[in-house]
């Protein structure tokens, strides 16, 4: 035994625990003790998503297509019955989309949902990007969000919905806590592949990132306080969530992402492999256990990697688009519409109950 321990101690190297990729598993969530539980909106969200997808000419409504894009874990409730009619288009919603880590630096390549906004605007929503620093901490970016919202001139009957991708979702949560006087302007927060509990990869790569960041000077993005990676540390994130209850005037919704190895963007494959020690249900940067806002509603698990779920990389130069591995373009437009329809429906039900 002593020899075995010595060998392990010297080489620090043991065959890793491997997990099988399967969706025959219930939705797992990592909670900080004391944070509120998450409720399940998957059945209704699937009805909405699938109905919208079936209406899209690019994705003809043949059976099975919807299931390709929305994973069904084994505890997802069955549909309640016939899908209810989708709500009519709404002019009451202002939507701001907050991008994630480093996205500002590569804004000329892609911003979240930028290819999908037009269709949502056609349906009566007013949707814009709210670009925050790609390299700054969430506290620093919360200032940017607060300033943008102060200057928004919301109409009396307009409701503000903030959509956050990846670290953008974290920046939004920091804004809500740091600016309680502005939080009542926000009706809902939608996290898409949000780094809610951070990522073990941030802990692993912080030193590398920080040394690269010191030497990375570009006109495209200022380093700000250079705290982005710290804001994504799991210990930092979970501690923050445990210590900062989110305002209960806001409704929270989460869309998580994961996919299998072959669908992972080439540039994300290393991250996927590193995270696979926890489980193969990850999107290349985040585990599914870490993508859900406590106290919110889980809308579903999309079959996409961390970037494909929001970023239109397919139409880019071959250098960029060549990294996209997914066999089919992910229907981001449908996803954005579906989350907005779900959220509008939930907010309107809320209003009726009040």
């Amino acid at each position, binding site marked *: 035994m002593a020899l075995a321990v010595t060998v392990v101690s010297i080489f620090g190297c043991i065959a890793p625990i491997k997990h099988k990729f399967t969706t025959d598993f219930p*939705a797992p969530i990592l909670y900080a003790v004391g944070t509120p539980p998450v409720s399940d909106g998957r059945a209704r969200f699937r009805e909405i998503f699938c109905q919208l997808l079936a209406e899209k000419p690019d994705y003809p409504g043949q059976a099975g297509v919807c299931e390709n894009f929305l994973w069904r874990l084994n*505890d997802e409730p069955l549909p309640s019955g016939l899908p209810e009619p989708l709500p009519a288009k709404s002019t009451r919603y202002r939507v701001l989309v907050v991008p994630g880590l480093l996205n500002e630096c590569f804004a000329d390549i892609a911003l979240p949902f930028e290819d999908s906004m037009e269709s949502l605007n056609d349906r009566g929503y007013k949707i814009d990007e709210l670009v925050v620093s790609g390299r700054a901490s969430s506290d620093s970016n919360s200032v940017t969000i607060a300033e943008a919202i102060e200057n928004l001139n919301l109409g009396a009957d307009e409701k503000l919905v903030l959509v956050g991708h990846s670290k953008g979702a974290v920046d939004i949560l920091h804004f809500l806590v740091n600016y309680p006087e502005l939080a009542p302007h926000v009706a809902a927060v939608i996290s898409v592949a949000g780094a809610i509990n951070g990522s073990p990869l941030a802990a692993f790569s912080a030193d590398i990132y920080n040394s690269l960041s010191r030497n990375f000077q570009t006109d495209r993005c200022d380093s700000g306080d250079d705290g982005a990676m710290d804001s994504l540390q799991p210990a930092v994130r979970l501690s923050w969530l445990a210590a900062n209850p989110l305002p209960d005037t806001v409704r929270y919704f989460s869309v998580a992402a994961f996919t299998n190895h072959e669908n992972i963007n080439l540039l994300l494959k290393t991250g996927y492999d590193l995270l696979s020690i926890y489980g193969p249900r990850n999107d290349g940067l985040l585990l599914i256990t870490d993508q859900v806002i406590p106290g919110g509603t889980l809308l579903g698990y999309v079959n996409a990697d961390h970037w494909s779920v929001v970023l239109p990389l397919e139409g880019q130069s071959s250098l960029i688009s060549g990294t996209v591995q997914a066999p089919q373009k992910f229907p981001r437009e449908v996803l954005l519409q579906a989350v907005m329809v779900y959220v509008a429906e939930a907010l309107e039900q809320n209003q009726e109950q009040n």
Partner: protein
Amino acid sequence: MKRISIPHHFFCLAALSLLIGGCQPRLVPFNVNVPAQTLSFLGAPPVFDARLRFREIFCELLDDNRQRLDLKIGCDDYLWRLNDEPPPAARSISMPDHDPGLRILIVPGAFSDCFEDVGKPYQEAAARLRQLGYQINNVDTSGLSTSTHNAEIIAKAVAGLALAPSEQLVLLGYSKGSTDILHFLVNYPEMALRITAVLSVAGAINGSPLADRFSETSYDNWFVKLSFGKCRPGDGGVLDSLSRTRQFQWLATHPLPDHVRYFSLAAFARYEDVQLHQRFTYKLLEPIEPLNDGQLIFLDQLIPGSALLGYVNADHWTVAVPVEEKFSDRDPAQKAENRKLRQLLFEAMILFLAESLNVAP
């Protein structure tokens, strides 16, 4: 005494692993500057925090017995203080009184019957509390069997108890014993009505990734097939019931009865403080989470809907069973201290229950 050849088996496994596998880097460091956390299924009732009161009880007990037992350890060195634990109260509340009206059944963990003397948790501590009037019994579950199999054994033990109307029945589960208890509660709902509370110590609530690994076909249940000590064959499904994949699934689909009150005490330790026989498995779990006890990850040890009592700074065996006293070459003074601390820990748990169960939840 006949020496059991565990070292040889562990060495074989280590060598095999090194041959088969590659390396997996540890992504997160050992860091106790984190809040209490739990991995749970969607819809699970939340865990709530009872660490402050449990610490008060344990620390006072430690201080009261420090001189008598010649203990030098600080309370905060034995109970981890994670960063979200509430600060001590300005005014301390007096220690609760013992309540021998609590009937305690202790359910041991996996492989417990393989090692006659060391598989039963808290035997010395229980002997002391019996002198105070408590009735504490062990449930003789099968060490190599599934939780379903052991649930039946627990049901028979519960059925065989003659309880006075004033008595409250508490099931204390250690490791897989906790899992066995949860299966009993679900499989025998009528018998479960007799249970007031369940206390899990280092409980394999979500199972362990180790079990999934060791039950892989490449290992072909090697662990179960080894001729350990005096194990009864049982149904041989111990690893199935410890599988994280299966146990997590089971929890998500089997709501626990809500008339029972649940309490969880978890454990984890630094690698250098883990006894030698658990260092290999600690290393297996470390890339997933360094906060583990050599068998279980800290966030897998909490019963959904339970009160969290705390995190003990001990490895999976040291927290409950005297394995190291029989097999380890650890410093004798350290072993003696661990034995005494285990006694105090058990008494603190019982005192905590005595107080909690006499107050409406």
